[in-house]
């Protein structure tokens, strides 16, 4: 553990800095070397890769919506002739309409990320 200053309360110290594990880091080096051979390490990498892909897909989906909305109003200005109580639709869409999209993407992400994790867990448990 990389001590940060004089540790006056040992139990608290342990919880403050996470890397309890970098004292005996001879093992991870060998674990890294055998990453291809060791199925456990392989599962971990697969999990990280699938979570990364999921995060990027969700972020991209949101950015596509974010770009599409103004583009739509630029390309089809007549859309804004429609008004709600005198207020053009573009105001409504930008002021309120994007929030449900955000929440939907977030909810979908939370579910899928949890599913990726339970898939990992069942693989790892089968193996053990």
């Amino acid at each position: 553990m990389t001590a940060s200053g004089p540790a006056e309360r040992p139990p608290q110290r342990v919880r403050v800095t996470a890397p309890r594990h970098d004292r005996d880091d001879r093992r991870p080096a060998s674990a890294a070397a055998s990453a291809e051979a060791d199925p456990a390490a392989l599962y971990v990498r697969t999990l990280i890769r699938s979570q990364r892909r999921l995060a990027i897909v969700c972020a991209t989906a949101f950015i596509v919506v974010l770009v599409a909305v103004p583009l739509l109003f630029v390309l089809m200005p007549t859309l804004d002739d429609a008004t709600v109580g005198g207020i053009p639709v573009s105001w409504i869409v930008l002021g309120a309409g994007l929030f449900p999209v955000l929440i939907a993407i977030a909810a979908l992400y939370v579910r899928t990320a949890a599913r990726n994790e339970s898939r990992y867990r069942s693989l790892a448990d089968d193996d053990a």
Partner: protein
Amino acid sequence: MNPALGYASIAAVTLATVLIGFFGVRISRTTSDFYVASRTVRPWWNASAIGGEYLSAASVLGIAGLVLLQGEAALWFPIGYTAGYLMLLLFVAAPLRRSGAYTVPDFTQARLESRAVRRVTSVLVIVIGWLYIVPQLQGAALTVGITTGLPRWVGAVAVAVIVGVVVAAGGMRSITFVQAFQYWLKLTAVAAPVVFVLLLQPGAAPTARAIADAFPPFAVERPEAVYRAVSLLIALLLGTLGLPHVLVRFYTNPDGPAARRTTLIVLCLLSAFYLFPVAIGMLGRVFMPGLAAGDPDALLLLLPAEILPSPYAEAVTALVIAGAFGAFLSTSSGLVVSLAGVISQELFGGSVRGFRIAAIGSVTVPLLIAAITDTAGLAGSVGLVFAFTASTLCPVLVLGIWWRGLTARGAIAGMTVGALACGAAIIVGPLLPGVPLLEQPAAWTVPLATLVMVLVSRTDRRRIPRGVDRTLALLHLPERP
């Protein structure tokens, strides 16, 4: 405006804050209570607290003012402020919680196994915290000046003193309760004017002509304006994910999935909240277009008296003042907690006494900065803090969590370049007005910082931390059920 109303509301919200703070003090005993509320906070409480902490002067006063001033272009602000939490959910929430570190510097040190990275991150967190507290104090100065007629500096000093005392006395445990209360107070404060206008339909209905003038259709912007909007959105989307006072809240979730659930609730709470400042800005465009030339940030404070009939006007104004003042209190105290955590760990070995000293120090410096700088638009100056965070802490967090190849040198190089580039733009920008690249730097400083981080790490492959596979497994593996 009737000063008695201002005094009464400010006194009431301060009293409530202090009372809840001290109610919490009785439970906070251990050092970890002081830092992260013992990690026993439920998602709803935690999400309300995050909302309370996040919704600053810029959100409560600034957005309504900006909609009044800029019209439709300002609607990107609430979208960006909220969507920042989507990015936080996607890229940071669960792994950061699983890292088990208290602060951002703890995280970078654990991930990159380097004291130097820790020091650089600590300095950045402190700078960001100070920069972010300044607009809160300026907002407080504006509010106190308008509502009580006292000199403006009184508001800034009052917020600094209250926050310093509450944080130093109670730590984070009480702050969690205070913050959760503040979210609901702020929501009520921004919702009340809109709800009462809808219920009472006061005054003469505006003419169709006035409405058409207030809400021009979507305009095709010039390239500079498009650049500004894109750059601002990049800053808001990515800046949230490095804000120290928001990140520190994630450690109070019991595990990774709870961190995700909390973020999802935060998204819902923020979406509900932002409907109202936008609506107030729109009401302002119809009923008080003249204010755009004066103090647009004061729109929320002045609108109720302008359009509501007598007993309602005073009641709603009192509520609005309380909500606005609450915003400065809550965001500043959240920032001071996270700053004090970092400073006390760096300088005082993480003791409770050190935390208290650091808390006082964390409010004093921004107070001095606020005293010597001018109030620019609140939403604008907070936008620049987001740009700075996005250019420094965001890349190191995202790459640290998702990229095995990040090294300590790469992280330090990237953060330094990002801080210098964005810092220079923030300082030089006001001197050279009309240069979009300096006014909204995020669009080039964020990619620059990230690129430097990646390239330097690439040339430094031998120094990939030895424990990287373990650390990444710790960040990403689900907890044992």
